[in-house]
C-alpha cells in the first residue's frame, strides 16, 4: 500500500484544544451589542383551530420590541422535500402538536420576552387528537393536513424480482412483527441561533445546524430575502445526529424579528423544547416475511412498514424509502417487496437520525435471520457468511457495492470475540449475539432536485507562503470533518496538518450540502482533494517556469519540493524569498526548497494562489421511482458481536462486551473512525435498552428531560473492541467511505440476538426494558 504522511494516522483533532479549554464558542455562547432575546409561544394543544390571537398586552409590556405571528411572518410553506413543504414558521389557522409555534417575541432580555409570551391570548377550538397510527388511519378520522385526507403523508410500493413466485421455492418461510419506540436525538447542545440583519439588507445567521446550505435556502425562500444576501454560519455545534439537518422555526423567526427591529436577535431552545421539536427517529412498525431454502440461501423478503411521522413531513419521505431500500444488502437477496406508509399524527415531527430509516428494519430483520438460522440448525455466523455480498455485487434494487469488506468484518468479529468458543456454551443468563449492517456514504442526490455540486472547496495560500487556508461549507458537528478535511488537504498538497487552517461551515465559503447521510468524508473530501491538487499544480507551474523543470519531474511532500531528478540550483529563488522576508526569523536554510518558499514565489509571479475543487456523484444506479433514496457512490458495512448478562430475577440486561468491525474503505484518521464506531454503538445500546419518548393522552411529551429520557451513561457502556476494516473504495477520496451512521446498524439486533441466546426469548418491541424482558421471560416459563 502507498505510504502516506498525514492520513491513516492518529493525529489529534484540529478543534480539540479549543474544546478542551472551553474556548470553543457554540451558538448559545454568541452575543452582539444591542442584542434582543427571542422566545416562542407554542401550542399547549395537540390539535386545535386557532380562532383568534391577541398580542395587544404583549406589545405593551416595557422592553418588548417585536411580537410576530403568521400575519407578520407570511404564509410561505417550507420543509425538507419540496414535494412535501408543509411547515410554516407560525401556525396561521391551526396547531398540529403540543409545541407547534404560534407566535414569537423579541425583547430586551429573556425574562421580558417570556413574560410577553405569557401575555399573548390565543383562542383555540380543540380538535380530535390523533396520537397513533391506528386512530390516524381510521375511516373518517379528521385530516391533520387538508391535502392528505386519510392522514397518509407518503407511501411507497416497490418490488424487485418477484416475491410471490420466489416464495414457492422456499423451504422455510417466517413472518415476524417488530416495533421500536420514538427516539430523541439526545445531543448535548440544545439548538440556538443569533440573527443579524444589517442596514444594507444583509442577513447573517449563526446557528447550531448540520447544513448551512439548506438553512440559507430556506430562510431566503421563506422571508423573501435574495439568497446572496443571506449568510449562514455554523459555530461549533454540540452534536446533531440528524435532527439539526433541516432549518427550524427558531432560525427563521430570529431572522424575521431581526429584520423587523434592525437589531440582532438571539434564541435558544430549552431542553424541553428540544424534545418538542424532535425531528429524530420515527416509531416503525415492520412486518417482515422472509423465505429461505433448505441449504440456507436467502431467496425473498417482503417488508411492510408503517411510520408514525408526527405533525409534519420533515425528512419523512426519505425515511420511508430508506426503511425499505436499505435491506437490499449486505446479503444477496434477489426478490424484495416493500410497502411503506408514513402517517401524520398529532405529535412532534420525526425526521432523520443516525442510521436514517434503516435501524429498526435492520434490528427486525437481523433478529429474524437468527431465528431462521436456528430453524436451519446453522450457526448464525455461517448462515450470514453463506449469503454475504462482496465487492462488485449489485443489489436487486441497483445499489452497486463498489467496495464491500463485509466478509472481512464478519470474520473479524467472529475471531475477535471468541465466538466459536462461546456460542452455545455460555451459562444460563449469559448470551452472545451477532448481526451485520450497512449504510450509504452520502445520499446520491440533493434533497431538492438540482444539478448542484454536493460540495465545493477552495484553498487560498497565504501570500507570505506561510499557511494553507482551506474554505469549505462542510459542517463539523462533532464527527470530525474539520480534521478529516484538513488531513486530506494536507496530504494532497504535500504539507503537514499544522500548516492547514480549516475554515468551515459558512455559506460564504462555498456550497456543501452538509453533515447528513454520512457524506462528508467522501463528498467534501473529494472536493477538498481536488482543490489541493489544483493548488499544488499552480505552485509547481510557477516553479516550473522559474527553474525550467517539467511539472512531471516535481512533487511536494512533507512541506518540501521533491525534485525527482535531483535538486536543481534554486539559490536564486531562495535569495528572492529571503529578500521578501528581510528581518524575519525562521528563514529557510538547508538543501531543500520548502513549500513556503515555493508558495511565495508562486504568489510573486501569479498573484493570489487559489485552488478549486468540486464534487458531485457520477451516474448512480436505479431508474425506478424512489431510486434517489439509497443510491450512493459507496456503501460502508459492519458486523458486531455482543455479549450480555440477563439478571433472571429482574430482567435487567447488562451489555458486557462488544466487538465491532467496520469497513470504512480507508481510515483517514484511525482515532476518529474508532470514535465514530464507539459513539454509534452507545446510541444503539441506548435505543435497544432504554430510550423511548413517551406521551400522555393529550399528546404532551411525558418525559421531556435527560433524567427521564435516559441515554447511556459511562456505567451503561462497556469498552468496545474496535476493528477497522479497509476495502479501498474506488469512489472515495484516497479510498475512504462512511463510518458515522452505519456503525449503529448491527448494535440493536446483536444485543437482541444475545438476549435470545441468554434467556431464549425473542423481542418484538423496543426498548427492551427490565420490565418488558421480565414479563417475556415469565411468559415463556409459563408455557
Amino acid at each position, binding site marked *: 500500500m502507498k505510504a502516506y504522511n498525514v492520513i491513516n494516522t492518529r493525529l489529534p483533532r484540529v478543534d480539540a484544544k*479549543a*474544546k478542551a*479549554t*472551553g474556548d470553543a464558542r457554540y451558538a448559545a455562547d454568541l452575543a452582539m451589542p444591542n442584542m434582543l432575546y427571542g422566545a416562542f409561544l407554542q401550542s399547549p394543544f395537540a390539535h386545535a383551530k386557532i380562532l383568534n390571537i391577541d398580542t395587544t398586552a404583549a406589545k405593551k409590556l416595557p422592553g418588548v420590541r417585536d411580537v410576530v405571528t403568521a400575519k407578520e411572518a407570511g404564509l410561505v410553506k417550507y420543509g425538507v422535500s419540496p414535494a412535501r413543504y408543509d411547515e410554516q414558521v407560525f401556525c396561521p389557522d391551526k396547531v398540529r402538536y403540543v409545541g407547534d409555534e404560534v407566535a414569537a417575541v423579541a425583547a430586551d432580555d429573556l425574562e421580558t420576552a417570556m413574560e410577553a409570551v405569557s401575555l399573548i391570548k390565543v383562542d383555540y377550538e380543540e380538535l380530535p387528537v390523533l396520537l397513533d397510527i391506528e386512530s390516524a388511519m381510521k375511516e373518517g378520522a379528521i385530516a391533520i393536513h387538508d391535502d392528505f385526507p386519510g392522514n397518509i403523508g407518503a407511501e411507497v410500493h416497490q418490488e424487485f424480482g418477484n416475491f410471490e413466485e420466489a416464495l414457492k421455492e422456499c423451504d422455510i418461510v417466517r413472518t415476524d412483527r417488530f416495533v421500536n419506540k420514538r427516539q430523541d436525538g439526545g445531543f448535548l447542545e440544545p439548538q440556538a441561533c443569533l440573527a443579524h440583519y444589517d442596514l444594507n439588507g444583509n442577513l447573517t445567521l449563526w446557528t447550531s445546524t448540520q447544513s448551512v446550505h439548506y438553512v440559507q435556502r430556506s430562510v431566503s425562500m421563506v422571508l423573501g430575502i435574495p439568497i446572496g444576501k443571506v449568510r449562514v454560519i455554523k459555530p461549533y455545534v454540540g452534536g446533531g445526529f440528524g435532527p439539526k439537518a433541516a432549518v427550524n422555526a427558531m432560525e427563521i423567526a430570529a431572522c424575521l424579528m431581526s429584520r423587523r427591529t434592525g437589531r440582532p436577535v438571539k434564541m435558544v431552545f430549552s431542553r424541553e423544547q428540544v424534545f418538542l421539536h424532535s425531528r429524530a427517529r420515527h416509531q416503525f412498525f415492520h412486518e417482515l416475511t422472509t423465505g429461505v431454502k433448505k441449504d440456507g440461501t436467502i431467496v425473498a423478503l417482503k417488508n411492510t412498514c408503517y411510520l408514525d411521522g408526527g405533525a409534519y413531513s420533515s425528512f419523512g419521505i426519505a425515511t420511508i424509502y430508506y426503511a425499505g431500500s436499505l435491506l437490499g444488502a449486505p446479503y444477496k437477496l434477489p426478490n424484495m417487496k416493500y410497502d411503506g406508509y408514513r402517517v401524520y399524527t398529532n405529535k412532534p415531527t420525526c425526521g432523520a437520525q443516525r442510521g436514517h430509516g434503516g435501524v429498526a428494519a435492520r434490528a427486525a430483520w437481523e433478529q429474524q435471520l437468527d431465528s431462521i438460522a436456528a430453524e436451519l440448525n446453522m450457526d448464525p455466523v455461517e448462515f450470514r457468511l453463506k449469503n454475504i455480498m462482496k465487492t462488485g455485487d449489485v443489489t436487486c434494487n441497483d445499489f452497486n457495492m463498489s467496495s464491500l469488506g463485509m466478509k472481512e468484518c464478519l470474520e473479524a468479529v467472529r475471531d475477535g470475540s471468541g465466538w466459536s468458543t462461546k456460542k452455545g456454551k455460555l451459562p444460563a443468563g449469559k448470551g452472545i449475539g451477532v448481526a451485520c449492517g450497512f449504510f450509504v456514504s452520502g445520499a446520491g442526490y440533493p434533497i431538492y432536485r438540482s444539478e448542484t455540486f454536493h460540495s465545493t472547496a477552495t484553498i487560498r495560500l497565504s501570500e507570505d507562503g506561510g499557511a494553507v487556508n482551506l474554505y469549505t461549507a462542510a459542517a463539523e458537528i462533532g464527527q470530525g470533518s474539520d480534521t478529516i478535511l484538513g488531513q486530506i488537504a494536507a496530504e494532497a498538497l504535500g504539507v503537514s496538518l499544522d500548516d492547514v487552517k480549516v475554515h468551515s461551515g459558512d455559506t460564504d465559503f462555498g456550497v456543501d450540502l452538509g453533515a447528513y447521510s454520512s457524506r462528508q468524508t467522501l463528498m467534501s473530501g473529494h472536493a477538498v482533494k481536488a482543490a489541493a491538487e489544483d493548488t499544488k499544480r499552480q505552485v509547481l507551474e510557477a516553479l516550473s517556469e522559474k527553474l525550467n523543470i517539467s511539472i512531471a519531474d516535481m512533487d511536494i511532500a512533507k512541506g518540501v519540493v521533491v525534485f525527482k531528478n535531483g535538486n536543481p540550483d534554486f539559490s536564486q529563488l531562495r535569495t528572492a524569498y529571503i529578500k521578501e522576508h528581510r528581518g524575519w526569523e525562521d528563514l529557510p536554510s538547508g538543501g531543500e526548497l520548502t513549500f513556503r518558499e515555493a508558495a511565495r514565489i508562486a504568489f510573486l509571479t501569479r498573484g493570489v494562489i487559489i485552488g478549486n475543487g468540486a464534487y458531485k456523484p457520477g451516474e448512480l444506479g436505479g431508474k425506478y421511482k424512489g431510486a434517489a433514496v439509497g443510491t450512493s457512490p459507496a456503501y460502508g458495512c459492519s458486523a458486531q458481536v455482543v455479549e450480555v448478562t440477563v439478571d433472571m430475577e429482574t430482567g435487567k440486561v447488562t451489555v458486557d462486551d462488544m466487538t465491532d468491525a467496520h469497513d470504512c474503505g480507508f481510515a483517514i484518521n484511525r482515532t476518529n473512525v474508532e470514535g465514530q464506531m464507539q459513539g454509534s454503538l*452507545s446510541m444503539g445500546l441506548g435505543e435497544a435498552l432504554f430510550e423511548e419518548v413517551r406521551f400522555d393522552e393529550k399528546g404532551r411529551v411525558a418525559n421531556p428531560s435527560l*433524567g427521564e429520557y435516559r441515554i447511556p*451513561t459511562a456505567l451503561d457502556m462497556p469498552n468496545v473492541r474496535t476493528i477497522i476494516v479497509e476495502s479501498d473504495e474506488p469512489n472515495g477520496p484516497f479510498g475512504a467511505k462512511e463510518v458515522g451512521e452505519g456503525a449503529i446498524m448491527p448494535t440493536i439486533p446483536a444485543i437482541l440476538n444475545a438476549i435470545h441466546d441468554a434467556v431464549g426469548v425473542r423481542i418484538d418491541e423496543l426498548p427492551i426494558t427490565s420490565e418488558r424482558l421480565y414479563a417475556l421471560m415469565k411468559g415463556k416459563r409459563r408455557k
Partner: protein
Amino acid sequence: MKKLITFRVNDREYEIAVAPNRTLTQVLREDLNLLGTKEGCGVGDCGACTVIVDGKPVNSCLVLAVQADGSDITTIEGVARGDSLHTVQQTFVEMGAIQCGFCTPGMVLSATSLLDKNPRPTEREVREAISGNLCRCTGYQKIVEAVQEASRRMKK
C-alpha cells in the same frame, strides 16, 4: 432584590450583585463571561455545566449564585495554565476523547477532581466519577482511557 456576593473564580476575587433566582451557570456565563461552562439541560441531568466548588464537582445549574457566596470556584477556564494544558486536557486531546466537545468542559472538571482525590482510580471508579456527565458522541471509552492515561502521567 439583588444580593451582593463575593466569591473566587479561577483565583480571581469577584464582588457582584445578583438576583436571588439566578443560577451559578447563568452568573458565570452571563455576568463573568466564562462561556466554557455549558448548559445542556438546566435541571441537573446532563453534567455539561459542571464546575468545581470548594473542591467538589457540582452541577452549576442546580446552585443558586447566592448559595455560592464565599466559595472558591474553578471553571474550565481555570484548568489550563497559560498555553499549557492540564494533563487531563492533554490526554483528552491526544486520545480522541473529544468529539462535539459540548460535554468536554464538564468531563474535564469531573475527571480532574477525581484525580485530585484518587490519583490511581480503577476503570470502574473513573466510570462512576463521570457517570453524571452525559456524552452522546463518544461512547465514553476514549474518555475513560484518557483519564486513566492522565492518571499514569500525573503519577510520574
